[in-house]
């Protein structure tokens, strides 16, 4: 690879950059005083909550700012050449094919109507004078380099014919085709499942070694940064607040915001009894509404008078290799945070009586969705009917006051299970009893008194509330519907609930568009609580939220459970979150329950082989932790014709432990370990127990801030 410019000059050098957008009645500075350097072969992570300007920075490099955005101040040098104040033509020439970008959703970056090969070749034929055959050869080489199995056939396929992880590989291969000096990746794994994410992250790490490309890696996930990057820049409200190497930042963060980000993540070794999460209060200010002085002071636990008046500059903190934008970094260690003392007190968790009858009893529950085909036979009701087997023989119990966590990748039947329990879908077969009543029928056939006891919290904060009604009337609606509260007391009851959600009574008359994501989610929880239900089903309630807000919602849910003695079923794809909130965990794969048991038993051997693979795939927010390297091959099979017997048998990495691997094609036995821990696997418990832990949990526990 030949770069212009001298060898020592950084690939990307940003100095005091400010980006502004023109809006109605003025302009808004989205970025201020950004400085950063990326050397050849380095991966630089950019982290921060949403709305902090991470993507804006990436777009300013490739000039994607849109019609109303422009670079207001500062310099932006690529391979030593100034990019600011150049005409568009010169820019294209300078940048040409030196910068490539990879976006979040691979399905949206690939053209669905073109074969992958054509799309890839296009990259080469537009930039270089190269023959079609040569281009084809180069593409196959590149696909080999991103570890794509069978590149020649992949070239002939359309984007929808390969899996999400493979699509992202193709996108990365395309970005690398013209040997860019800088590769910008904007949340490249956010839309992918953990096991797929892990494989893509491995690839990114390998690229760093094999190519000399500098990578700018934008993400909101600290675990991803710890796994792939060498340097990290932490962004907050359009400013770079901390910049250092990965190990320095995780070992010894100097800015209160970075400390907060690390502290509010649930650690894989912690549960709700032994620890509390420390959310960062407040929210990221809008760009036109940033405070005077330090941008972070309204949310900072250490804020002093000086912070409110004087804007800190980026400085090298003495005794460290960290650049941070804080007045008091050196003193932070010696000060006790005020909020810590308040929350950190002993918690008494509600202890439920497991000897009593369970509140929810599911046995052999099945949900098949009929498939519609367009054949002529089908029109006359002939031909074989096909089904999507979304849920197969699910059996479990939930006791009053407990939390059952359900984990699994997308398409594993978690949501189908919830919908069947709550009655949005009718069970195809099996038994479901709630408080002794049959709930295998649809909600419209259930008694109102039963409906009121089962409520749900939804995933997407933006669609959980009806935009046309105020917060108060939406929380009041269940009370009116189920007549749980006399009419004249409804407003005061609603306010009581709002207070329990840590929202002030002023929210009563607000509309959903005036609330932030976290606040909307709180109102969603309040609405679910309004009918005073016995069981609340939570469908990924925190996965669309920023980490700082996620911590607050998780704390809120635990508090509510203590206060109202509510039972929770909590779906998540994040194993750390489930570890924190749950008493019992159920691991699902392709509609089957693989493993179910008390939370501590799931996260330690004996593991089900699928759980083991999941655990080894989570990106841990600690660069020192050693994690076992298990990667699943292939993609999840179709639920229309799932594998016989154990549905995981086609991808199981532990299948070779069995003398007769063919046995996996029969239904696995239920093996009961201690404390009612059930593993559905043919491999004997003794053999599974011998497997070493995926993560050394002791190390994690000692690292807790």
């Amino acid at each position, binding site marked *: 690879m030949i770069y212009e410019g001298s060898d020592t000059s950084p690939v990307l050098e940003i100095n005091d950059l400010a980006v502004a957008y023109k809006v109605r009645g003025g302009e808004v500075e989205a970025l201020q005083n950004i400085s950063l350097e990326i050397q050849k072969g380095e991966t630089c992570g950019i982290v921060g909550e949403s709305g902090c300007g991470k993507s804006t920075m990436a777009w300013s490099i490739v000039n994607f700012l849109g019609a109303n955005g422009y670079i207001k101040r500062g310099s932006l040098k690529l391979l030593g050449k100034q990019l600011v104040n150049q005409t568009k033509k010169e820019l294209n020439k300078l940048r040409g094919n030196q910068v490539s970008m990879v976006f979040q959703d691979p399905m949206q970056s690939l053209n669905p109507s073109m074969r992958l090969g054509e799309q890839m070749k296009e990259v080469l034929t537009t930039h270089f004078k190269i023959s079609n055959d040569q281009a084809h050869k180069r593409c196959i080489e590149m696909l080999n380099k991103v570890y794509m199995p069978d590149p020649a056939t992949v070239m002939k396929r359309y984007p929808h014919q390969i899996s999400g992880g493979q699509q992202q590989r193709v996108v990365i291969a395309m970005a690398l085709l013209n040997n860019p000096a800088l590769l910008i990746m904007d949340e490249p794994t956010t839309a992918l499942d953990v096991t797929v994410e892990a494989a893509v992250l491995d690839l990114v790490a390998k690229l760093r070694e094999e190519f000399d490309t500098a990578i700018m890696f934008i993400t909101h996930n600290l675990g991803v940064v710890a796994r792939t990057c060498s340097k990290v820049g932490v962004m907050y409200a359009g400013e770079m607040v901390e910049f250092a190497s990965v190990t320095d930042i995780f070992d010894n963060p100097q800015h209160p915001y970075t400390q907060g980000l690390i502290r509010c993540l649930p650690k894989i070794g912690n549960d709700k009894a032994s620890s509390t999460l420390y959310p960062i209060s407040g929210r990221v200010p809008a760009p036109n509404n940033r405070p005077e002085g330090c941008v972070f002071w309204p949310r900072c636990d250490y804020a002093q008078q000086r912070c409110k008046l004087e804007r800190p500059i980026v400085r090298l903190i003495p005794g460290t290799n960290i650049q941070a934008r804080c007045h008091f970094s050196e003193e932070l260690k010696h000060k006790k945070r005020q909020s810590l003392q308040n929350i950190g007190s002993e918690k008494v968790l509600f202890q439920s009586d497991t000897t009593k009858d369970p509140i929810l009893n599911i046995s052999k529950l099945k949900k098949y969705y009929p498939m519609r085909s367009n054949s002529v036979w089908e029109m006359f009701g002939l031909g074989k009917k096909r089904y999507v087997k979304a849920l197969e023989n699910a059996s479990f119990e939930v006791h009053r006051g407990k939390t059952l966590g359900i984990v699994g990748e997308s398409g594993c039947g978690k949501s189908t299970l919830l919908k069947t329990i709550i009655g949005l879908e009718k069970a195809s077969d099996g038994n479901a009893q709630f408080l002794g009543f049959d709930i295998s029928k649809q909600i419209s056939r259930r008694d109102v008194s039963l409906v009121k006891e089962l409520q*749900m919290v939804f*995933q997407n904060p933006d669609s959980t509330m009806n935009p*046309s009604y105020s917060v108060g009337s939406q929380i009041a609606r269940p009370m009116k519907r189920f007549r749980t509260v006399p009419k004249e007391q409804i*407003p005061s009851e609603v306010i009581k609930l709002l207070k329990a959600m840590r929202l002030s009574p002023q929210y009563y008359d607000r509309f959903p568009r005036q609330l932030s994501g976290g606040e909307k989610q709180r109102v969603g929880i309040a*609405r679910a609580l309004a009918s005073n239900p016995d069981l609340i089903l939570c469908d990924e309630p925190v996965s669309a939220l920023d980490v700082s807000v996620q911590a607050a919602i998780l704390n809120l849910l635990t508090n509510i459970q203590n206060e109202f003695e509510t039972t929770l079923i909590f779906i998540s794809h994040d194993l750390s979150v489930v570890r924190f909130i749950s008493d019992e965990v159920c691991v699902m794969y392709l509609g089957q329950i693989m493993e179910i048991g008390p939370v501590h038993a799931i996260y330690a051997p004996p593991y089900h082989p699928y759980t083991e693979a999941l655990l080894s795939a989570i990106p841990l927010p600690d660069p020192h932790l050693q994690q076992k390297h298990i990667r699943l091959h292939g993609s999840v099979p179709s639920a229309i014709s799932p594998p016989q017997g154990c549905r995981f048998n086609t991808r199981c990495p532990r299948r070779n432990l069995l003398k007769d691997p063919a046995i996996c094609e029969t239904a696995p036995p239920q093996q009961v370990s201690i404390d009612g821990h059930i593993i559905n696997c043919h491999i004997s418990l003794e053999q599974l127990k011998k497997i070493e832990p995926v993560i050394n949990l002791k190390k994690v526990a000692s690292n807790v801030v």
Partner: protein
Amino acid sequence: MELQVNNQSTFKVRMKKAWKTYSVVFNSRIAVIGMLLIGFWITAAVVSLFWTPYSPTAFDFIQNLPPNSINWLGTDHLGRDILSRLMSGTQVVLLKTRLPWGDFWIPGGVAIWGVLGSLTFGTLLGLNAGYRRGVADHVIMQFLDALIAFPRIVLYLVIIASLGQSDLAVIFAITLTGAPGVARLARGLTLDIQTRDYIRAAETRAENIWFIMFFEILPNAKGPLLVDCMLRVGYAIFMIGTLGFLGIGLPPPAPDWGSMINEARKYIFLNQFAVLWPAFAIASLVIGLNLFADGIREEMTRFQK
């Protein structure tokens, strides 16, 4: 106590908010132009209720006069003042509907009631089709498609022939021809809205299906539906013109624009103005409504902070 204080202050806040929402109209130049055109005709109609230069039905003047200082827009083939007829012709379109039983009328013109009719009918069908889906969706949409498949003029003739010439028949004709379009729009919006989580939340409360359709879905679909209706008022006026031209429109003797054109066209070589003025009136009102609706739609969909 706390809450009452809240309620009082919120009335003012709400008024302010409402003003904020509706004042976006003034941000769009074409919406303002449209509003001026509509305003002009509404004013003309209101004034004509109390005063017109001369009686619109009296044969006071020489026939087929061009515009002059006495009859500003000229006179028609029977010697009636065109300005007066044009002004009171606005009434039936925008302001009043005459009932067949005696000399009664209800406020709201034929075009307005017709569009309200197609809005109600179309929304009802569209919501049911979009929310219930399956068989209900098929039945409703096939029925509407069949309705669209009829040539409009034939449909009008059938309706007028069976119901007789009256304001209500015209309203019915407008309703029937407008409903399929509204229903399609409402169905599309419902299909989108019913995937949202708040609809799931309502379902987990086992709410009545009509409550979900009219209280959870409809308020969120009303914006596009109202803009569409604004455009439809324009089409309806056009349609009244067409019906009048065919001689099956609003019953005489009160003037309406369509029949004015129809009557004057026989004398077009003698007096072009008698055709031109009502044609111009129809065009300007339709254009005004279109501009207004377009302007509002543009402002509503524009990115707002």
